[in-house]
């Protein structure tokens, strides 16, 4: 179908005439008629025959006014052909005789709100779009075909400006390139056309009356419910709602069907954020639109809040009395569906909650009033344990998590409300980013709730009232302490010099430092697999050579603080049951790895002495390193995708020491050494192979140990800086500490003890004796030190 727009058609002419007359012309015509009528009446009173002429003149004003109002201002669709269904806005903006090519049409239409809808949400200025469109009339024919298809797909009777614009953008190759430069894609334009289509469909929907003036006369009064509850139906009636996308969802239809099958109470099951409350709102909207089964016709949904009721009651007895009165009132009224949001609060004793399960059980059994409960599956499981009779009486409806396209629809519809309420513009890339980042970082909630929550929080990071992907990233960074935004120049500089920073507190182990630094750089630059941890390393070597120190150094230099380290001593996980301890989910489970990583996803996870862990735990490791996540006992995933995983082991330490003593370099025997560990049965090959790198640490030489002493002295001086005291060691003193603190089996570990004994004790004594005073600089020589 290669139709073209006929701007000389009768519809086009009428549209242009309608625009020319406009509202102003309409008002002038009516005013003219009114004046004629008034003058006519005055003439009639004065007995003049001119009154009749004035009435005739009035008709000359009224008739075109009627024509304008009913025909010219809307120019209804006349046929399914292109010219029969072209929107009046398109017909009035395009000029007859104008050459119709993509660029000229865009320039004519870009002032319309539907064109701005695209350019604003894609963060593109009108000139950039114009430059990306061709001036070849043949290309416009192709654009029109796409626009017509979009109109059909969106059940739009007319081909609106928005569909034409989408057709122009989708058929332009340079525009596709422009989109890729701003990290968007043609699919985004199609999604936006659908979004616009839904909005236009909503505007076309004729809202039915919810029963008229006599609706409630057959039903009882509900003064108490009005006081304690929230009438969802009336709220939707008065303020409107946009749950159109959900009114035909499986969950809503299942609730309706349950009530139609004489269920007295339904429980909506789903995780937080999955849309349980929204489903109830959608049901209320269906009731208002008159699309429900007769048993629910003219019913109103009233939501009860446990905290509100508790705060207004004077005691337990009062609480029970209120609950009984509320349910009695709902039952007598005959048109109330009670909704218990966060229903678990009605089944437990505690602050802001109370146990009404027995009262509710009797009401459910008596089928006195239709009720809807909303809670998570785990809370329902708890109800099963505490009050099985009540749980058995409830008809369960499981709300399923929405797939990505539906979540995006919800986000798009939500964005409209957020934009209006907060006077901001939310870009389409922000919607996509909210979907992806909430999925990656918020494991506590389900879609679409978590994406909506993130989008809402991102408004606080809007730049010049525009919410972009960067705003969403900043919100995530603030909430989870992770780095997801683009790398700032200062951070890039720090990343490029990461080795230098780490070496400020690490002596030697150059290869290890370089391997870890490279992994961090790769992750930050976005060139690693985002579905795995940032990096995973196994550090092998003798005790006291800096394995743990390197993990701490990474935490301090890259993750912001030495505290950004989750350290697990694997010698405490030697029993098969210890695995459960790692995967526990309770808030008080301090030893749970999953609880720690959820609180602090951007971190270093250090598994010390991994060879001592039970083999079951090593199997968990395979999942962690492969998928970047672990699943807790309740089936919820915890992400390790923003963590560096480090496992340390002393396995084969003696062999390393001997080879180094023989003068071999680490590089020369690293591969052979790893094979030995596998062949010796100390590690399974599948575990070793899953680490990004196996890094060998060699024993420190005396010279390196002297540098370690100097690093430790820096720490001592930092502590003494409060008293304005500085201490310096002579080379002889350093050599003596190295001699005392060096143990081939324990590496540099005894060094701290030696320093403490020799230096810190000596200084403490001198301070107390008044030999060192604030502002002093003290030099300690070998004879000054006692061990």
């Amino acid at each position, binding site marked *: 179908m290669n139709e073209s727009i006929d701007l000389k058609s009768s519809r086009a002419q009428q549209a242009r005439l309608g625009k020319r007359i406009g509202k102003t012309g309409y008002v002038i015509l009516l005013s003219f008629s009114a004046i004629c009528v008034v003058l006519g009446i005055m003439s009639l009173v004065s007995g003049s025959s001119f009154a009749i002429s004035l009435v005739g003149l009035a008709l000359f004003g009224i008739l075109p006014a009627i024509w304008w109002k009913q025909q010219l201002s809307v120019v209804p669709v006349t046929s399914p052909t292109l010219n029969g269904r072209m929107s009046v806005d398109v017909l009035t903006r395009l000029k007859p005789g104008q050459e119709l090519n993509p660029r000229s049409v865009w320039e004519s239409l870009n002032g319309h709100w539907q064109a701005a809808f695209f350019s604003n949400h894609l963060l593109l200025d009108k000139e950039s779009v114009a430059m990306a469109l061709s001036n070849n009339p043949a290309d416009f024919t192709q654009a029109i075909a796409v626009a017509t298809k979009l109109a059909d797909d969106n059940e739009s009777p007319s081909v609106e400006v928005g569909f034409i614009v989408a057709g122009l953008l989708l058929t332009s190759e340079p525009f596709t390139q422009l989109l890729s430069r701003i990290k968007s894609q043609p699919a985004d334009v199609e999604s936006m056309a659908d979004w616009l289509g839904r909005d236009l469909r909503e505007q076309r929907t004729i809202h039915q009356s919810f*029963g008229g003036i006599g609706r409630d006369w057959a039903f009882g009064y509900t003064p108490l419910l009005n006081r304690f509850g929230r009438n969802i139906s009336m709220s939707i009636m008065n303020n409107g709602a946009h749950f159109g996308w959900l009114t035909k969802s499986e969950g809503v239809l299942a609730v309706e069907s349950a009530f139609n099958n004489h269920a007295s109470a339904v429980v909506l099951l789903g995780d937080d954020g999955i849309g349980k409350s929204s489903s109830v709102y959608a049901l209320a909207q269906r009731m208002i639109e008159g699309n429900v089964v007769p048993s629910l016709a003219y019913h109103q949904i009233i939501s009860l809040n446990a905290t509100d009721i508790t705060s207004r009651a004077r005691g337990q007895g009062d609480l029970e009395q209120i609950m009984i009165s509320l349910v009695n009132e709902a039952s007598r009224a005959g048109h109330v569906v009670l909704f218990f949001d966060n229903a678990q609060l009605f089944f437990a004793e505690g602050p802001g909650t109370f146990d009404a399960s027995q009262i509710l059980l009797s009401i459910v059994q008596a089928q006195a009033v239709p009720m809807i409960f909303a809670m998570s599956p785990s809370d329902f499981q708890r109800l099963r344990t505490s009050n099985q009779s009540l749980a058995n009486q409830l008809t369960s409806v499981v709300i399923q998590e929405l797939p990505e396209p539906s979540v995006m629809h919800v986000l798009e519809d939500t964005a409209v409300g957020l934009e209006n309420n907060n006077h901001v513009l939310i870009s389409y890339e922000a919607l996509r980013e909210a979907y992806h980042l909430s999925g990656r970082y918020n494991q506590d909630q389900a879609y679409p709730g978590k994406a909506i929550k993130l989008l809402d929080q991102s408004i606080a990071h809007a730049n010049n009232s525009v919410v972009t992907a960067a705003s969403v990233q900043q919100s995530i960074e603030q909430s989870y302490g992770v780095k997801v935004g683009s790398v700032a120049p200062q951070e890039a500089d720090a990343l490029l010099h990461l080795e230098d920073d780490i070496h400020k507190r690490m002596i030697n182990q150059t290869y290890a430092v370089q391997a870890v630094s490279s992994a961090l750089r790769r992750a930050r630059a976005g060139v690693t697999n985002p579905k795995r941890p940032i990096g995973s390393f196994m550090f092998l070597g003798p005790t006291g050579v800096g394995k743990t120190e390197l993990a701490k150094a990474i935490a301090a230099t890259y993750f912001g603080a030495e505290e950004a380290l989750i350290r697990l001593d694997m010698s405490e996980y030697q029993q098969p049951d210890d695995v459960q301890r790692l995967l526990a989910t309770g808030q008080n489970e301090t030893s749970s790895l999953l609880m720690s990583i959820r609180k602090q996803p951007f971190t270093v996870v250090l598994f010390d002495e991994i060879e001592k862990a039970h083999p079951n735990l090593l199997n968990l490791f395979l999942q962690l390193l492969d998928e970047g996540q672990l699943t807790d006992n309740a089936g919820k995933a915890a992400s390790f995708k923003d963590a560096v995983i480090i496992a340390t082991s002393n396995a084969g330490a003696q062999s390393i020491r001997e080879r180094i003593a023989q003068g071999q370099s680490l590089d020369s025997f690293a591969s052979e050494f790893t094979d030995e560990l596998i062949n010796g049965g100390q590690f399974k090959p599948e575990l070793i192979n899953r680490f990004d790198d196996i890094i060998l640490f060699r024993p420190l030489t005396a010279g390196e140990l002297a540098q370690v002493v100097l690093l430790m002295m820096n720490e001592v001086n930092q502590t003494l800086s409060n008293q304005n005291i500085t201490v310096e060691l002579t080379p002889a003193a350093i050599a003596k500490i190295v001699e005392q603190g060096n143990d081939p089996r324990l590496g540099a570990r005894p060094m701290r003890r030696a320093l403490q004994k020799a230096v810190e004790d000596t200084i403490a004594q001198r301070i107390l004796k008044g030999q060192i005073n604030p502002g002093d600089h003290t030099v300690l020589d070998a004879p000054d030190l006692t061990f």
Partner: protein
Amino acid sequence: MMVMLAVAFFSWWYGQGWKSVLDSYDTRLKTSGEYFSVKQLLRTLFAPWRRIISYSGTSLADRFKAWGDNIVSRVVGFTVRCIVLFASLLFAVAIIIFTTIELLAWPLLPVLAPILIFVGLLG
């Protein structure tokens, strides 16, 4: 241009425009019926007013009193509903009369305008 406009106007006035007046019977009556809750009121014509009912006790006197109270509630409900239904009936009749006049006068209006002016000028 003027001729074309006149043709467009008259073809709309005696075509789609006139038909829309005819269609308005249906929409106006429906809207009126919904506003006055006609279906709902007819369905619940004898129901107690706002479900205000007494529950009978065990004694005969109590039962008799409750029965009396409930009759009163139903009579009140019936009366109010009848008044509203009557009002809606009047309204519907008014709609029919007004729309019929509109329908009959519609084709005459374009012709009437110049005639009235002419007649008035003639005195």
